[in-house]
């Protein structure tokens, strides 16, 4: 049923559009172009900016699209919820599924790009010694995304303000997460402050900072990696991701229960 619903959402999404799924690839390319431009103008960009940006942007997109679409998933399917019985948790899961399809598609092209570039151009090498962080970061990302999406999708049925709030929150969250700029730069600035450890810890309270750093460390290997990436050993980063994943698991348990508590009343609230 989940597969069917994901298929449905995908079809609906691209019905009547000429380019169809190409849109999902175009989106990160445009982002890349814009931010490359901005980063070049402002200076201080990572050496291999495309890899750096996309490594963080693709997981962020999975998260933000799941959240914003998941928030309205129950409301948008009001006609189903009010008239057909089915497990309600399918709805947010289907939106995450759709975002996941995009993520997999984009990541496949992205990874292929890295591999081909390494094979064709002598200046680039394929470095795989941190790639094992990739699946760990992915698991943490998925757990965290599902947990938060469950919460917003159930709460949004009653409190419609959430739709608007999420838009703003995601904007703030995006800039608080080291996607466009390098976390290494953040660390370098924080150290100069009077309370370096406190500020640094506060910054790392953001689970997405860990997750994005995980992806970046897994994929980014230019000569300035030391200044750009999170100044932690791969082992420590993995441990941090483990904590994020575990906490997300707990959060998921909580939001799952909230969802089930509220889902019985969805048909009435809509």
């Amino acid at each position, binding site marked *: *049923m989940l597969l069917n619903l994901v298929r449905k959402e995908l079809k609906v999404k691209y019905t009547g559009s000429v380019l169809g799924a190409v849109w999902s690839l175009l989106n990160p390319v445009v982002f890349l172009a814009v931010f490359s431009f901005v980063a070049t103008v402002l200076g201080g960009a990572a050496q291999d900016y495309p890899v750096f940006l996309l490594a963080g942007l693709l997981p962020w997109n999975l998260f933000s699209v799941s959240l914003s679409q998941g928030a309205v998933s129950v409301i948008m399917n009001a*006609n189903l919820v009010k008239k*057909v019985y089915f497990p309600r948790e399918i709805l947010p899961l289907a939106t995450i599924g759709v975002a996941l399809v995009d993520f997999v598609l984009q990541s496949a092209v992205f990874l292929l790009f890295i591999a081909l570039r390494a094979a064709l151009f002598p200046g680039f090498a394929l470095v795989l010694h941190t790639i094992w962080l990739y699946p760990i970061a992915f698991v943490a990302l998925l757990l965290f995304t599902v947990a938060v999406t469950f919460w917003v999708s159930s709460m949004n049925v009653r409190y419609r303000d959430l739709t608007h709030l999420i838009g703003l929150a995601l904007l703030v969250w995006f800039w608080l997460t080291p996607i466009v700029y390098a976390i290494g730069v953040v660390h370098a600035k924080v150290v100069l402050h009077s309370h370096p450890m406190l500020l640094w810890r506060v910054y790392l309270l953001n689970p997405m900072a860990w997750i994005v750093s995980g992806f970046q460390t897994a994929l980014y290997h230019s000569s300035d990696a030391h200044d750009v990436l999170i100044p932690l050993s791969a082992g420590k980063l993995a441990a941090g991701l483990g904590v994020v994943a575990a906490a997300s698991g707990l959060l998921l348990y909580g939001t799952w229960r909230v969802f089930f508590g509220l889902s019985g009343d969805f048909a009435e609230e809509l």
Partner: protein
Amino acid sequence: MTAAIEVQDLSKRFRIYREKPTSLKQRLLAGRTRAEDFWALRDVSFDVAEGEFLALIGHNGSGKSTLLKVIAGILRPTQGLVRQRGRMAGLLELGAGFHPELTGRENVYLNASFLGLSRRETDAVYDDIVAFAELGDFMETAVKFYSSGMLVRLGFACAVHVDPEVILIDEVLAVGDEAFQGRCLDRVRTFQKEGRTIVLVTHALDMARQLSDRAVMLDHGLVHAVGSPDEVVREMRLTILRHDLEFAREGGTREVEILGGSLLRGHDPLAGALAPGDCVTLQVDLKANEPVDDPVVSFALHDAANNYVFGSDTAQQGVGLGWLDGKRRVRFQLGPVPFTGGQYWVTVGVHSRDNQRVYHVQDQRYSFEVRQIEGRKDQAYVPVTAEVEDL
């Protein structure tokens, strides 16, 4: 026999907000929101046995559809519980579960998956569904272009082909054309024979009577009557009339007043139901408050569905009341009544000969009942004598 559906002390409360606060700000500002409770269902209990066809009837707003939604699991009961066994398919609303942008084919697969079918199982019944819905040429068209008849055909076709053990139908069948309705009913009857459980919500009382094994009548969220469809349907019809009676006109200028009317068999008040072919007397007592010249007394009979059946008056029967001053009694002797089973309602009136002035009318104040002859579907009773002779 085991129950396919058990409904126990089921209550459903809706909160009615004057202005529904759906945003945080409104919630916070409003503090405790002014909500009024509305009980759509109150302590409803009944079982539906496996293989039984249950009809749910009641007025608009009596809670039928809410009850069906609670059984289907769409709404959560406030109190009480519903237990249900077996795969359930619901036809709760037109085009429910269809996505307008998707084609008929895609919607069939989506819908079937909601009803619990795998892709392969759907493949197996897909052709049957298309054939039943008669939508062969339209399966690749987005359903937003479908007519309501096409939607209901596809919806019904999906619901009946997923091999449900319990099927819930809410009034949607009324949309299809007659031929399709006929096939739906055939299908429903087949289901009945196969021992599947059916719950039907309907306003078509005759359909309920013909199809169902048992009926439940809801009234303002309470179970008003449970039992054989005939009895419950009759109760429903009587309730409709009683409801109407509160608004019944009793009007007129009252120069002449109807003191009372009564139905008699011979000279005794009518007791119990009549048999078809019985004779009945309608007796009307009048009192003139002012002297009136030559008034006319008339009566009319309506059946339980409030259709006019028959009527007559003193003028038509060639009887005059003359100068009326004081009291008088008029008696209409009705010959063998040609009616078959049902309740009949009598309206009595007295008016001037030219019909310009109505002195007094009592609308459907009196009633009598005629028994249905067991096991017969006669529309009317005609006395018949049969003879046999050699040629």
